[in-house]
């Protein structure tokens, strides 16, 4: 399996999804060899071993290939990431993002030659080249695992080379696993991919997260303060700017409400500035990226979690939020909206609709409690465990094997 994010090197939901998938696959009896690039600047043993070190733990093999590839960035972000890596170390990295992708693919092919495997699973365009090279070496079927396409990340055509590589990977793959019907339809429409080779596998969530225990420590804002949460990368795709505009509207109706922006990203300076302009800077809190117990704590101190994403191919945050008993407002178009009933679904640009729901949740405890209990019950159903997506992904693997036999 060629992924890209894996803890502790995590920038967004894909690491959570990859961990979840790998855990689930192992639980349903599928052995996994995971090859991930990871950014040297964040590594404790940064970039010293160029071809990556092999770490064996039980049935899971993680190959970490030292590389500054970042999962969500485009070409410009790569430049920044590479420069910081260069500042610390001598570099043998390719001179541009695509060169780096090719270099990763070359290393991945070497690993594919020596690691026994039955199928190849490559996550998103950045790993497609690796998957294709591995297939050329081993002759095993390739599953393209698609989480988002350039259109989702950029809201338009995006980088033509990335789009070309997405299309090439999707069209060449033996099967495609997509995390929603919407993303499948988008791939079919934009990249003329054969709809017949898609398997839609909605994500599940680790049942280990979200315990019945109250979160450790009380809310630093006080127990009675209404809290509205944004959690995610602070980038245009996730709509944190919509969140602030909604916050300002909400504050007119619920002056006591506080707003938490949990995450980091390129829009942070803009947002800090904007919250002052809107006159709500005293009620907006920027926590930066959170993990572990802090994550659970921030969900539980919130009365509602709002996802104003411009594009949200799946939206794991919704499952995490609901599992922690926090009602969720998700984009109508999100993949998660295809499978979750007990939540509000709105158009992200429709700030009035979003405000309407947020104010209602803050105003009516009955509504908040109903959403909280029903939502939590819903994500606790078997279909949202890790086993279900793993079982469906395994079925897709077997289908690919049958077809290639």
């Amino acid at each position: 399996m060629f992924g890209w994010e894996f803890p502790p090197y995590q920038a967004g939901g894909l690491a959570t999804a990859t961990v979840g998938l790998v855990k689930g696959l192992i639980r349903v009896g599928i052995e996994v060899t995971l090859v991930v690039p990871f950014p040297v600047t964040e590594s404790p043993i940064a970039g010293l071993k160029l071809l990556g070190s092999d770490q064996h733990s039980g049935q899971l093999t993680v190959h970490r290939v030292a590389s500054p590839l970042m999962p969500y960035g485009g070409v410009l972000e790569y430049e920044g990431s590479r420069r910081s890596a260069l500042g610390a170390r001598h570099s043998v990295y390719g001179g541009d993002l695509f060169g780096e992708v090719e270099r990763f693919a070359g290393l991945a092919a070497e690993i594919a030659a020596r690691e026994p495997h039955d199928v190849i699973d490559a996550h998103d365009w950045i790993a497609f080249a690796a998957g294709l090279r591995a297939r050329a070496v081993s002759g095993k079927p390739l599953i393209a695992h698609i989480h988002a396409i350039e259109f989702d990340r950029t809201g338009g055509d995006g980088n033509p080379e990335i789009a070309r590589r997405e299309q090439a990977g999707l069209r060449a793959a033996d099967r495609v696993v997509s995390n929603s019907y919407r993303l499948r339809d988008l791939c079919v429409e934009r990249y003329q991919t054969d709809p017949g080779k898609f398997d839609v596998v909605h994500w599940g969530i680790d049942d280990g997260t979200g315990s019945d225990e109250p979160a450790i420590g009380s809310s630093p804002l006080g127990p009675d303060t209404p809290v509205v949460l944004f959690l995610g990368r602070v980038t245009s795709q996730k709509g944190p700017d919509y969140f602030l505009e909604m916050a300002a509207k909400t504050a007119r109706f619920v002056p006591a409400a506080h707003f938490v922006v949990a995450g980091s990203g390129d829009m942070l300076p803009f947002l800090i500035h904007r919250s002052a302009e809107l006159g709500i800077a005293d009620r907006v809190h920027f926590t930066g990226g959170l993990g572990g117990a802090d994550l659970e704590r921030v969900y539980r101190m919130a009365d509602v979690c709002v996802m104003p994403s411009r594009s949200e191919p799946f939206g794991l945050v919704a499952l995490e939020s609901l599992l922690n008993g926090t009602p969720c407002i998700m984009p109508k178009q999100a993949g998660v909206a295809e499978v979750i009933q007990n939540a509000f679904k709105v158009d992200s640009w429709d700030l009035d609709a979003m405000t309407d729901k947020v104010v209602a949740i803050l105003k009516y405890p009955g509504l908040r409690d109903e959403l909280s209990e029903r939502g939590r019950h819903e994500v606790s159903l078997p279909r949202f465990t890790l086993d279900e997506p793993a079982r469906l992904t395994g079925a897709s693997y077997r289908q690919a094997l049958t077809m290639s036999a």
Partner: protein
Amino acid sequence: MPDICLYAQVHQPFRLRRYRLFDIGTGLDYFDEEANARILRRVAAKCYRPANRLLADLIRRSDGRFKLALSLSGTLIEQLALYSPETLESFQELVDTGGVEILGETYYHSLAGLADREEFLEQVARHRRLVERTFARRPYVFRNTELIYWDDLAPTVLAMGFRGMLVEGADQVMAGRSANQVYAATTAPSLRLMPRNYPLSDDVGFRFSERSWGEWPLTAPKYADWLHGATGESVNLFLDYETFGEHQWAETGIFEFLGHLPHECLRRGLRFVQPSDLARRRPAGPLSYPNPTSWADQERDTSAWLGNRLQDTAHERLYRLGRALRALGDQALLEQWRRLTTSDHVYYMCTKWFADGDVHKYFSPYDSPYDAFVAFMNVLEDLEQRVGADLPILLAR
């Protein structure tokens, strides 16, 4: 061999707009006139007019031996007059055949019986006046919204001059007794209770087009055999009128079924009776309903309307405001408020099926029960603001 008592409920609510926070105080109308007109006209074309024509024909051809009962909510009659007068005429022509008894109910198809007895009396009286004006008939038998009945209601219904009342033949109430009998209300013994035979009613209402059902396809001769094989005083078949052509589409053969049923029953010696006929019969014994019982769902209780915190919150606020509005005496505001008492509004907030992702079990104009709640509460907020500064004083009374 029992008699056959066929009854159908005809109702449409005034649906609300997706009324938002930012609409409060703007003077925007609460009701979605476009949607209400569209839905009413669609159902009128698919169900009401074809069913009315068919039933009128069946009544005439049977020389009056085939007969039935209907009840039409006030909100339905209003909508017919507004959006489809020809359909209202078609109902009047059907009633003019002499084979249709019209039952009494709350004008607004409301839960006032549960919440506010004074309002209940007012809504039943309004409905009675509307029926007299529209059909020149006086209702003698009562059916409460969704067949909701419990012992406490009987004296009130009797005091309003009704002789009998339709009730649900729920297992927990019947406790082994037959639903095919007429009973006396324990709290008002001269009020007759007629329990619905729910298995035979649901064979038509729910299972008719269900291909996985062992008895599919259900034909009129087969069904008439079942009725003929039943025991007791009368088999009470109580349905939604929308069963014919809307819940069960014409393509399922529901109209052919209905078209042949009277003849198939009559040739087996079965007789059709109406609720007022049954109300004159001697009761088989007393029947007690300790808790509010309805014809809905497996539970047969009121949890489809008052079963979660959304519904309780909205219902409580609605009736609190109603008492204030009556004290204020503003008829225009009261009329707006009364349309909000239609039980469909809280039904849309029902979450009990939603929990397991089964969203197809019921029809709602909203994306979710939560959206239904928010729109409804925003409307109440606006209505409260329109009462103005006197509201706290009125609420305190």
